[in-house]
Each structure stands twice: as C-alpha cells, then as structure tokens.
C-alpha cells in the first residue's frame, strides 16, 4: 500500500518505520526537517519537508496516488483540515485523523472522518488497568 503520513513526531515516525518494515511504500511529511531524526537509518521511505495543510505540499507527497492518508501532527485543527483536504479534494480512499479533544473527535467522526482520540483511548486503557488491579 501507498501511505502518506503527516507529522513526523514520535507517533508519526514510529508508524512510518513499522509500515516500512512491513513493506509498504511510505512518505512522511513534516514542516520541521529536524523531526526526521526520529526515522531509523534503515527507513526506506521518503521524508518530505512541507506543510500538510498546503495542497501543493500534499501533491508533492503523492496524495493523488496514496491508498491511505494519516494525520498525526500535534495540532487537532491541522489534522482535521488536512484530512478533509485529503478526503474531499483528493478523494483519498482512506483517511485517518488523530484528534486529542474528545468532543471535536466525536463531531468529525459524525461528519465521516475516521478519527482516533488518544485522550479517550488512553484514559480508557488506564481505567481498565486501575479497576482491574483493584
């Protein structure tokens, strides 16, 4: 599969290297080249400097051909905007969006984005662990 990942933070870089190991064609986009240090030396994919809410940058990242677009920058709004560009302008078949704010996550999920709120997931995980121990 061809995958475009926006945001090369801890999650973005890790996801990129895992998918790369599995043999997928991965491109990572970030507006800070320093963040590419997180990619392992063995990484075979492409690391591209650019802003993911800019349609030109997304085109350079090959958004017109990708099967999946994943937005994992620190900003909820940037993730939401880039995912909507991917879905509504470039018709990417699958678009995944990280949204920390649970309320915003619910709203955009209702609007048809595939969303994940790490806040919700992690709180739930901790709750299960806490209550499981007791």
């Amino acid at each position: 599969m061809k995958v475009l990942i926006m945001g090369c933070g801890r999650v973005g870089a890790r996801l990129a290297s895992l998918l790369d190991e599995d043999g997928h064609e991965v491109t990572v986009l970030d507006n800070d080249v320093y963040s590419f240090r997180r990619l392992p030396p063995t990484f075979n994919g492409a690391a591209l400097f650019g802003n993911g809410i800019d349609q030109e940058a997304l085109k350079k990242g090959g958004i017109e051909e990708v099967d999946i677009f994943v937005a994992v920058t620190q900003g909820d709004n940037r993730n939401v905007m880039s995912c909507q560009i991917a879905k509504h302008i470039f018709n990417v078949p699958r678009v995944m969006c990280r949204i920390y704010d649970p309320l915003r996550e619910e709203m955009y999920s209702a609007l048809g984005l595939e969303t994940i709120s790490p806040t919700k997931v992690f709180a739930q995980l901790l709750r299960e662990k806490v209550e499981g121990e007791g």
Partner: protein
Amino acid sequence: MYIIVVGGGRLGYNLLKALLNEGHEVLVLEKDPRICKTITDEMGSVCHRGDGCEAATLAEVGTGRADMLVAVTGDDEDNLVSCQVAKHKHNVPRTIARIRNPQNADLFKKLGVDVTVSATDIILEAIEREVPTHPLTHLLTLDEQHLVMIDVKVSPESTSIGKAVKDLSLPKESKLVLIIPGEGSPQVPSDATVLKANDQIIAVTPPETEEALKAALRGK
C-alpha cells in the same frame, strides 16, 4: 444581531469596535489572557477568554443563539474548525472565515463555511481596479446564484467595435447589464445597441463562461 468573533488580534479588535458601533451584540473569543484584558479594559465585558474551536467554550457563550460567527485568527485551520463546530454543534446560520491562503476558499465552501475572505484576493482586486489598462474587473460574486458581476472595457483595438449586441457571440447565460460610454450617460443595452471604443460594460455571467464573455466583448 448577536455576532461572535473568534480571534482578538488587530482584525478581530477592529471588527469588534465597528460592529459595536453599529449596535450589534458582539463577543470576542480570545485565548491569550493579555489580549483579552486589553479589550475588556477598553470596551467592557465583550471578550471571553477561551478557545473558539472548542464546542464547550462556544456553548458557554451562548453560540446556539448567535446569528453569525466570524473566525479571524491568523491560522486557516483554526478558522475552519471554529466555523465547522459553530455550524454543526450549534447550528449557527452564517459563518465567515478569514483565509491566509487563497487556495483554501474552495475547500472551506465545500466544507460548509458560508463566506471566506482573503486579503490576497482583495488586494488583487484592488490592483485590477487601479490599473486602468486591465480589461476585466470583478465587481461582485453572488455565490448562491452562482454568478459573477464583471466590468469589461472595450479597448480601441477590439474587433467588437461597431457590432450590435445581438451580433456578438455572447455565451447564452451571460447578460449585459449596463453600458457606460467613454462620453455620455450610462444606458441599458438592447439587442440593437452598437459597441463603441472605450465603452465600459457591466455584465453578469456564471464563472465558467467568464472567459468566453471576455473574448466576445474584446473580439479576439
């Protein structure tokens, strides 16, 4: 009208002042406590400290009864999300977003933002108007009717000079509204009206046939 302005920067601040002067009920949402304090000190309790992209903050300030939300922060993504939350969570009937990147206009409209304002486009339009040789100026965009109003000048070299309106190959959907001659008073054109050099023509057309209309009037 109750109008919520998201972003208390220079643009939001001046918007707030102007809207208050016009007698509207206005509230600014601003994240930065210092900016909020400056506004409150000067104009009273018209600034609420909070994130205008959060549904909870918008609920606190009674967005449900707002007639309009105007998002004028410096970041396009924040303005988009603020308008979307207002629309989908609080049913605000009109949303307006400032955009820094003019490319975002189509996306925002597609995603339900009613009006977008781009400084780049406004300055470009001003340049079009200021440069006298520019053959075509956009006067107005009627989004809902899907029409634009334009102003075309018939240059002295145009091959359409001397032709009657009915003999111009105008696109079907385009209508000539007014002809302002180089000398004399404006007139509403009929089929028989003959074009002269330096006529200024006001026309209405769908954006798609704008080029064809321009070509017909300039007689390329």
